[in-house]
């Protein structure tokens, strides 16, 4: 009995060892969704695979998917910390407090949490300025729309989503000051049925451009059926609408993951709070398609200006939705304000759920 048990343990150890290559560094990823969701989590997984490829055999990457936010996340992260991970990326806002808790227990492991705001000596927070892409989209929408009204399928009224809505409207207003935006809240990140219904409702209300802050390709497909244009989200959705997609915001985390893993390997990793944008390569615009050359040129010009820092989407004069002034002419919103953004700018035809 005892012998067979030890044989079993030995065989298990061997099998596990077989899995582990000669990698001297282990990077681990905790996902909130499925790695094939076609949106958010898939974008992180593509980043993970890029990092793995970049380092050849020197870095082993491991992931765990569909981890619910809450106590389950504590355990998944702790399991990683115990299993010899050198750096752990937790890729959903709701993992923030669990990551912090585990980080306090395992001081030698480095932690990176996406889209949150808490940090520690061994915990960094990182995020992407998705709103920069939204601003470009708004400009394109104002050029392409005949009705002067776009529809926005929104997930949850958190600052990140509100930033996107506001940036879209601000971009559009640079082209057409009277541009209007209708918003539908679907209260989910991923629900093809709900997203499609929202798309249909918006089109029935007269919008002729669609954009979304949800992850399925359903809105793109509805837009294609109805013959209007739309923007993709998180991943390139051109396959769902070859004649429909104008561009898409693609989350490209790979560059960031490579940078941070490298820093951790050569000992230069420091706790920080990063909020990278187009210039850092953390988000990328899909090719500008299905639009005239002058619109394409304008979009590329705006993208270049954002990259160079000449243009910041949230630059005054900007009024709040009710007409009261928010930013004076030339004044730029600071990151603290943006990270807690909970009001609309003028031109949004919706009441922000509070």
């Amino acid at each position: 009995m005892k012998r067979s048990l030890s044989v079993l343990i030995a065989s298990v150890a061997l099998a596990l060892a077989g899995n582990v290559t000669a990698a001297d560094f282990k990077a681990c990823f905790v996902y909130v969704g499925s790695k094939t969701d076609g949106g958010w989590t898939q974008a992180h997984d593509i980043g993970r695979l890029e990092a793995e490829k970049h380092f050849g055999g020197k870095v082993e990457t491991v992931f765990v998917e569909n981890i619910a936010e809450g106590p389950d996340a504590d355990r998944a992260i702790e399991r990683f910390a115990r299993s010899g991970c050198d750096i752990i990326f937790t890729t959903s806002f709701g993992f923030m407090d669990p990551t912090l808790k585990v980080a306090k227990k395992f001081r030698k492991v480095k932690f990176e949490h996406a889209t949150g705001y808490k940090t520690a000596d061994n915990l960094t927070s990182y995020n992407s300025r998705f709103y920069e892409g939204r601003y470009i989209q708004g400009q394109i929408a104002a050029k392409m729309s005949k009705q002067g009204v776009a529809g926005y399928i929104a997930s949850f009224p958190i600052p990140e989503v509100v930033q996107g809505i506001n940036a879209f409207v601000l971009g559009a207003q640079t082209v057409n000051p009277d541009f209007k935006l209708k918003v539908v809240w679907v209260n989910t990140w991923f629900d093809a049925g709900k997203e499609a219904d929202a798309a249909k409702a918006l089109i029935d209300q007269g919008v002729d451009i669609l954009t979304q802050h949800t992850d399925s390709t359903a809105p793109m497909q509805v837009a294609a059926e109805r013959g209007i244009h739309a923007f993709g989200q998180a991943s390139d959705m051109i396959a769902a609408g070859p004649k429909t997609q104008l561009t898409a915001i693609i989350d490209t985390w790979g560059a960031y993951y490579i940078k941070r893993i490298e820093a951790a390997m050569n000992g230069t990793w420091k706790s920080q709070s990063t909020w990278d944008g187009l210039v850092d390569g953390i988000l990328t615009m899909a090719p500008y398609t299905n639009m005239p050359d002058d619109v394409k040129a304008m979009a590329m010009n705006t993208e270049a200006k954002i990259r160079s820092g000449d243009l910041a989407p949230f630059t005054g004069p900007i009024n709040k939705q009710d007409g009261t002034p928010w930013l004076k002419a030339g004044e730029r919103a600071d990151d603290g304000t943006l990270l807690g953004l909970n009001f609309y700018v003028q031109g949004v035809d919706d009441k922000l759920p509070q």
Partner: protein
Amino acid sequence: MQLALVRRQYPSRVLSVFTPFIAFGLTLLAGSIMFAAQGLDPLVTLYTYFVEPLIETWSLHELAIKAAPLILIGVGLSVCFLSNNWNIGAEGQFVVGAITGSALPVLWPDFANFATLPLMLLFGVLGGCAYACIPALLKTRFNTNEILTSLMLVYVAQLLLDWLVRGPWRNPEGFNFPETRIFNDAAILPELFSEYGRANWGIVFALVAAIGVWLMLRKTLKGFEVQVVGASPRAGRFAGFSSSRMVFFAFGLSGALAGLAGIAEVAGASGQLRPVISPGYGFTAIIVAFLGRLNPLGIVAAGLVLALTYLGGEAAQIALGLSDKVVRVFQGMLLFFVLATDTLIHYQVRVTGGTTAGDSRGDR
């Protein structure tokens, strides 16, 4: 060659004890085939799945955290199911218990003293109990099907929680994110042995509840009433037992325990309310109740086994790259085999039409 199910004159006592084990064995067997089909060594996978989580202290603590709500809810459900009341809405009672219990630390964060936690637990119990009494009232008053009403009320509870954490109860310092403020220290359920792991008092509540309900069912008139009304409502009426009072008792008790599980989960492992606080404990507890033969002590064992499937699934995912869907497949297979083997307690398989035993085995 034909197979027939023939009713036994007396239910088999031996089988009624052993079917959960047979079911578990069959699940392991079917699971091994599934692993092998995915190109994994079944032995290694089963080891990672069912043994590895048991050999480390911190992991045992996690097991206790995961098992506590399953046992608490399952014990309550056993009283419901024994008395023929089909409460499918424990998930909703869990959520409502968490909400009513959390009202104190969320709305009065400065009320932090020795009374905070007991009051929270009490509110959680009352909330879950009251919420479970809605389907009980509908059943006794309007003869509504309690399976439907209790299930529908789950969604009502989940949406209520969702609305609260995104709206009036949202953390004022939380950058608009959908979560309540973090509970003050007096509102946190203490850990049992904090230097070794995270297990908290929730598991103690679960064990006390299991023993309490077991004693109630075995030693008291009320327990006898539960079983008589459940087995034969007509006999119950002759005995002078009120079936509508039994409906309220069963729903009330199971709702109270589900509510306690809810507030213990939130005050213990999470420390705040979020839009989703349960990975389906209320539904998994139905499997737990049946796997435990509706016997509170059996439910303790069943709760630990189901908790182990969660932990093992995660371990296997990390160590072997197994899909997380396997956990649910495992739990589904377990329930399937439990229900299937239960048939054998009351029925015998007979071969009719004169064939050899070998053939019939092939057919089974």
